[in-house]
């Protein structure tokens, strides 16, 4: 699969690179970051990839967002929700 150029963004302070436009959840999985936060009693990780389960909730530039519905943009600052 041909992909667009990679851009840099940050997750919890660490710099990551991913093709622009890839879903943020996919980019985090590709980077080996699967544990995105702590839920009540169990860790949270991307699960449905289609905006249903809300398990991949993160903050993108300060705003709550589902990582599976957010395309990667250059310079976006992602933090755990």
């Amino acid at each position, binding site marked *: *699969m*041909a*992909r*667009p150029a990679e851009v840099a963004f940050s997750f919890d302070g660490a710099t990551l690179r991913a*093709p*622009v*436009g*890839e*879903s943020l959840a*996919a*980019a985090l*999985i*590709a980077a080996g970051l*699967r*544990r995105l936060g702590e*839920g*009540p*009693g*169990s*860790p949270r*990780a*991307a*699960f*449905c*990839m*289609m*905006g*249903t*389960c*809300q*398990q991949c*909730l993160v903050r993108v530039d300060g*705003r*709550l967002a589902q990582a*599976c*519905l957010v*395309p990667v943009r250059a310079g976006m600052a992602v933090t755990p929700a």
Partner: protein
Amino acid sequence: MSAPFDLAVLGAGPAGMAAATEAARRGARVVLLEESPAPGGQVYRAAPPGFLVPPDPDRRAGDALRAALATSGTTLLLGHRVWGLGGGPLVPQGAPPLPFRVDALPPDGAPLTLEARALILCAGTHERIIPFPGWTLPGVIGLAAATILLKAQGVLPGRRVVVAGAGPLLYAVAAKLLKAGAEVAAIADLATQGEWARALPTLTARPDLLARGLAWRAALATKGVPVLAAHRVVAAEGADAVERVRLQALSGGTSESFDCDALCVGHGLVPATEATRVFRAAHRYARESGGWVPVLDADRRTSVPLLYVAGDGGGVRGAAAAPAAGRLAALAALRDLGLLDGRAHARARRRPALEHWRAAQGGAAMARMMALRPALVDAIAPETVVCRCEGVTRAEIEAALDDGATEMNQLKQFTRCGMGPCQGRVCGEAAAELVARRVGGRERAGFATGRLPLRPVPMEAVLGDFDYADIPVPAPAPL
């Protein structure tokens, strides 16, 4: 708010794209709202801009629908999350129905409210995953999730993967994993060989799909992937993420352990009925169609005037049947709005009606394979979390039932099960089965009343410029 549209279509999967295209081509003012950044839905999902994916039959079918939509004159609102619905029958008692109201949140900017005289819901399905110990570990994802990762993004869920559950997605995911360079440690299929053999005759109507399925099986056999029929996941195990999965025959016996770094699991598809529930449309429980479905006539009319459902949200029949259902719904809406006369409607509906009937045969056979399997619910351990948003275990659900909860709304009130951000979409099936076992069936267990917001939305987006100081406070009564 601008003048009402003739028709609003919610969801730009195959049903929604076809519905909007049909109505707009016939001159109706149509708006199509979609949560994703591109039209396509799950099966016909488009890769993001700049991702060049080798063409496959799904991509070609999706591209044809997208091309027709693009030239149809439909107002297409992408990245719009619909969170509110109103109007229609939701008026004070005795008042005449209003146009439907749709509240949506665009990707950036101010919330949007629009009106439409008729509404077609094409919400599709979500995946059913019946809980098992370890299902919440990172590395465990849905089968549909895996197809999205692999098809649209070209990202592997893991290097060595166990694939488990029911239905054709199992083999689609396993074959795509192999092709993308991952190792498939094992496939655990809930169905027996006999169930597949019985489903085959209905699939001969779609030789293309049948051939694709057989090619997947052949690819797996070539690589020597163990395919375990009538097996389920007993547990996913690992410290911080899944490290191995234990599989066991449905008939019992010893479990077999497979090392892996990802588990893709799915137990079928459940129609998304939150919008028809909000409008208090009539529903019926149809296990072999995926669960609760709105009651529909042959032209996809619900029990609510000018409200229609097309695609798998009205009962699982597959992507191949969805466009014809969308066209039927659009034609019925135009007829009911007086934009198409009876004769023209009768003529225009003939072809989609026949297409839908044909495609629905194979779709129904696959839906039966993916229907809920009670054995999985029986096997849920007391300490296993059922509702992961709120951390509610099976034991807590059983305790609420002991305390007198008799249906889904009471279970929600007693335990908060289904009250978290996913709004019961993930836990609903397992929880409803647990209630049904006590009260004598899913009809009695019912479903959670449809409520707004349909999806979580930030308060700031909904409030906009609203300020508490804007609330008019009447002067206090004189003493």
